[in-house]
């Protein structure tokens, strides 16, 4: 069978009428010329020769500027596109300095082990050709014990990740004396990844790093790289807590790329149901792979990776028998060996299609793919460009297709191509002084070096926090110094990335006497993905969860082959503890402050493959989880709502629909993952909440008791809150941007083509009720009225 090249394939596609109807934008990004500058005069001859041998005869203009700034000892944040030679901006000045002063040390931080490994190979290559005695090592959880000592003493460039710095390096800094005493450069790549919880932790890790450096008399220069976001310089300064120079004018030439925004067809106008993004993703990917065009498909959840991998494997099993990995899934939770095999398969083109979560978004070396399909908006414009960049990093023409899902954020993006292509409206936020996060790091810092009277760490009153920890018996004070006085190792008590560092291990018990661990699930996901009777999927194999043992942190599963998957249902309620700020718009009260959130997984739905039919329900009995966090909310008094002459149920539906819409828009505005924020409607007492049952919505007072208590004693309130204990700082931003949120919701809902509400505006009509859309618009009218 003759196959099409990508160019031919694109021509065929663009002449396809149905494709043109659904493509909201086809943008050809032409190749562009670069802007260049000569090597600075100070560059070592040997180094220059090695770089020239690699074809780098001159620098891009941004590279020249960055290396000069770093050379001058300025802290820099570099924001240029994928494949614009960012690594040279730090490798050149670092290697130069090591050649001049061989004692010099540098620390490279990458968000993942895989990226660290890749980077190590690159530096290694340079050094190999340089024939200089410069040693580069990765140092992470996989580094063998016997190699560690040599790395600590001899490594000029130590490549690691923030987690290892946090648990493995800083608490053992005396072994790293040589590194810290001579530390001149700290390189932080993928800076935009460090936002929200992760970024708040990392800021504290940097506080600890700088504190340890001060002990050894070092004051390193920070070189950061980031994807395009709205506030790279501000974000870098928040993370590093020092002045940073921004370099953001790329001098790199660009390869040609076609970027398509695609909105799947509406299949039910009345319900506002569009085709699932997975359907066109499957068709397009199948067609591309069938034409030997190597393709990566990004989906937004682990579940979708499994579903889509299964679909594509089904397609190719018949066509290309015996090649089980012709199409592969790839996500966190797969064991490392399997992942290495898939990465290798991609580089060698034995794997022609891969379906991944954002695990492959960053620069893991999988070679140059030709096409990238994003089944669902990755959540930020920055991530979208990074994912799109996986196709054609160095190759010629490449293709990226973003397929919208039926949710407000996706719809907004594909329907507003200008917004997508012209700006970077996303802000990175961190809240390093979140008390819980701060306290964890103060403990770790005290473990590293005793605190002294008058020292500063973060923006809260350190002395008060130290006294608090002293009262807890964790610190001991003597002679104006606070010493760590506990047996534990505090860095192990907190993970930088998730709320709870615990994992649940998934054990396959299909074969008696041969139990195997097949995956790990983080603690919070465990409640929704491996509860009793859930269907859990790995590499598109289905497993039935026989039992989730929370105490032993194990889920016991057996292989099954069923035609459905499961989706967990949860309820949430919120109680206000303290308001920080309040203002009124008419009689609507807008506030932000501290709240207590209680959440419980109550059941699950069984959903049929391909048709997405609901084919059953089940109960789940897991403990309730409480969380204290910060929230933004607004309250609409009953007497105002009464003007609308809607039934109470309709009002509740309207509020729920509005909350759905606001949650999505809020996440887009503050560059939060949709899961970093959550929503709830209730009143401020936490005494009633809305339960989404198998049939309809109930307003209940106590969990588990389905009684309708529609008293006038409460006022309906919509909460959008930080989904992390103590909050990450989104709430005050949302409070400030309340008006913007309301008008975006108004424009999204009123312009949505559906009749009664759909996933693109207020949520699916079948879930939020037939009156949700009309009610939500009516309520928005009240909110906008002065």
């Amino acid at each position: 069978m003759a196959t099409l090249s990508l160019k031919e394939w694109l021509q065929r596609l663009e002449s396809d009428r149905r494709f043109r109807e659904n493509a909201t934008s086809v943008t050809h990004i032409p190749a562009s010329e670069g802007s260049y500058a000569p090597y600075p005069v100070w560059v070592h001859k040997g180094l220059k020769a090695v770089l020239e041998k690699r074809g780098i005869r001159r620098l891009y203009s941004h590279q020249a500027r960055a290396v000069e700034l770093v050379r001058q000892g300025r802290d820099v944040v570099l924001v240029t596109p994928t494949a614009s030679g960012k690594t040279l901006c730090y490798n050149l000045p670092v290697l130069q300095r090591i050649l001049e002063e061989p004692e010099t040390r540098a620390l490279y931080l990458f968000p993942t082990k895989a990226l660290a490994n890749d980077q190590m190979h690159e530096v290694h290559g340079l050094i190999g050709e340089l024939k200089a005695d410069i040693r580069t090592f990765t140092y992470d959880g996989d580094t063998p014990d016997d190699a560690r000592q040599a790395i600590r003493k001899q490594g000029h460039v130590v490549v690691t990740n923030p987690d290892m710095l946090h648990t493995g390096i800083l608490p053992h800094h005396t072994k790293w004396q040589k590194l810290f005493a001579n530390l001149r450069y700290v390189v932080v790549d993928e800076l935009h990844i460090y936002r929200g919880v992760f970024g708040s932790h990392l800021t504290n890790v940097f506080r600890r790093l700088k504190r340890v450096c001060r002990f050894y008399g070092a004051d390193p220069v920070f070189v950061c790289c980031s994807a395009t976001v709205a506030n790279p310089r501000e974000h870098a300064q928040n993370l590093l807590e020092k002045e940073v120079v921004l370099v953001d004018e790329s001098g790199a030439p660009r390869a040609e790329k076609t970027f398509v925004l695609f909105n799947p067809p509406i299949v039910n106008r009345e319900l506002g149901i569009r085709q699932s993004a997975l359907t066109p993703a499957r068709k397009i990917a199948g067609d591309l792979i069938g034409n030997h065009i190597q393709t990566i498909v990004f989906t937004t959840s682990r579940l979708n990776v499994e579903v889509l991998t299964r679909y594509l494997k089904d397609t190719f099993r018949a066509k290309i028998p015996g090649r089980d990995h012709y199409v592969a899934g790839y996500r966190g939770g797969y064991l490392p060996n399997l992942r290495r095999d898939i990465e290798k398969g991609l580089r060698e083109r034995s794997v022609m299609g891969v379906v991944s979560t954002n695990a492959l978004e960053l620069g893991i070396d999988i070679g140059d793919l030709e096409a990238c399909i994003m089944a669902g908006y990755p959540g930020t414009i920055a991530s979208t460009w990074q994912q799109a960049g996986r196709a054609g990093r160095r190759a010629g023409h490449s293709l990226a297709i973003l397929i919208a899902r039926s949710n407000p954020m996706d719809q907004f993006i594909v329907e507003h191509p200008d917004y997508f292509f012209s700006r970077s409206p996303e802000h990175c936020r961190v809240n390093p002084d979140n008390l819980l996060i701060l306290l964890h790091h103060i403990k770790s810092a005290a473990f590293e070096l005793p605190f002294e009277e008058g020292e500063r760490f973060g923006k809260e009153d350190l002395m008060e926090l130290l006294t608090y920890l002293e009262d807890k018996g964790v610190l001991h004070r003597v002679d104006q110094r606070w010493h760590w006085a506990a047996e534990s190792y505090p860095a192990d008590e907190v993970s930088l990335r998730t709320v709870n560092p615990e994992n649940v291990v998934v054990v396959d018990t299909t074969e008696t006497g041969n139990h195997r661990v097949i995956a790990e699930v983080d603690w919070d996901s465990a409640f929704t993905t491996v509860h009793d009777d859930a269907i859990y999927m790995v590499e598109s194999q289905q497993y039935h969860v026989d039992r989730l043992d929370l105490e032993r942190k194990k889920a016991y599963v057996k292989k099954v082959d069923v035609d459905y998957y499961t989706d967990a249902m949860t309820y949430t309620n919120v109680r206000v503890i303290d308001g920080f700020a309040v203002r009124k718009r008419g009689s609507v009260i807008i506030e932000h402050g501290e709240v207590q959130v209680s959440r419980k997984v109550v059941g699950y739905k069984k959903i049929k493959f391909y048709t997405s039919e609901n084919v059953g329900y089940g109960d789940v009995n897991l403990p309730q989880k409480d969380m204290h966090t910060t929230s933004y909310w607004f309250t609409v008094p009953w007497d105002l709502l009464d003007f609308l002459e809607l039934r109470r149920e309709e009002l509740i539906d309207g509020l729920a629909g509005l909350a759905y819409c606001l949650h999505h828009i809020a996440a887009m505005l503050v560059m939060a993952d949709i899961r970093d924020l959550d929503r709830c409607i209730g009143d401020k007492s936490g005494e009633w909440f809305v339960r989404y049952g198998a049939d309809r919505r109930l307003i209940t007072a106590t969990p588990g008791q389905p009684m309708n208590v529609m008293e006038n004693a409460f006022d309906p309130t919509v909460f959008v809150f930080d989904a992390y204990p103590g909050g990450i700082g989104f709430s005050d931003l949302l409070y400030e941007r309340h008006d913007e949120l309301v008008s975006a919701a108004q424009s999204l809902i009123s312009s949505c083509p559906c009749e009664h509400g759909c996933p693109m505006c207020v949520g699916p009509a079948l879930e939020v009720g037939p009156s949700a859309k009309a009610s939500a618009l009516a309520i928005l009218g009240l909110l906008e009225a002065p």
Partner: protein
Amino acid sequence: MSLRDRLGRLTGEGTQPGRSDPPGELISELRRRIEEVVNRRPVPGPQAHSGRDRTGIPLERLVTGEEVRTPRGGLFFSRSVLAGSHRHGVFRVGDLGHIDMRSAALLAGSDEIAAFEPGHALFLDTETTGLAGGTGTFPFLIGLGWFEGDSFVTTQLFARDFSEEIPMLCLLDELARDRRFLVTFNGRAFDLNLLSARFVLNRMEDTLSNMPHLDLLHPGRRLLRHRMDNARLTTIEACVLGLTRDDDVPGYEIPRRYFDWLRSRDGSLMEDVFRHNRLDIVSMAALLKHLADLVAGGPGRESAHPGDVLCAARLHEERGDTQTALSMYERIAGSPDSRVAISALRACSLIYKKASRWEDAVLIWEGMISRDPLDLFAAEELAKFCEHRRGEFKRAALIVKTVLEGSRTLSPEERSSLEHRLNRLARKSSAP
């Protein structure tokens, strides 16, 4: 609102704005929950030795010792001398210092030590605020020991608070300068590592790390582990040194005792810890004596455990001293412990073979086969001998065939290797 209140609320404790503080009995519950959030670990129950409410007994009344001053401050210092006639388990203290230094060097894997005398040894063991390692683990008690004539001296340096760390390290440095090499039990991975970190943290020179070091854990494990469940010092004491400890403070309790001491200054909390540490030091001296005798093969060789001797012989062989190894193997070749005897015989035969002492080697192999015709090792060796050195193909084939047909325990690889040999022998014996 105070930070403390904010922290309290982050735990999800049910206080509401405007409400009064929780009543007294709730406070402990609140504290427990803050603790959980703060520590992410269950809080241990009340300790048997919570010193808070006790009337503290001064340390000096319970432990022989006193405050000493250094230029950088004071610390508590204890010294005791065990006379030569004192018994530690099955050992007389006066005998402990008679160590063959070549054997000690062999145990350490370091030739340097052979040049020293037993009196140059500095035994060292620390008690710490935890086992986690890292810069936040504090060695608050440093026990040292050395031989002085017929006696054994132990000294203990105790930091009564974190502020006495520098004086403690100064004194350690001074005492260490009088000795030439270190003897520890797991010091390489633990005690020395920790002390090294403390020297760096206090910006002091680390003399200890440069001293030659005999860590008894590794030779102890190597020579004795075969007959013990684990290689902990207390296990070795019970098994080998003939010592059982009564009322010894369990190691896991020690950090908590020190934290309680910091608050209460109750000497009774530390009394047991001092004794525990001193016993560890003396036991290290006894263990060194035992292990050195074992590898020296000197006096007491009749009573030595044949399994230990086997391990010692292997150690010699590995380090290139074939002669000593052979004499040890020969000594236990007739051991009633058949597992040990067979291992020794095999090892002997291989040494003979390497030295081309064919008659001696063949004698062993034939002996082994006459006892057990299915002995794979002896059969293979003898078959090789017959085939390659004697050209007795038929005899070799018979030996191999016997094993192939009789043995039920051969692995697939062993079987195919034997079959391969048998085929070759068949070809050779039918050739003209």
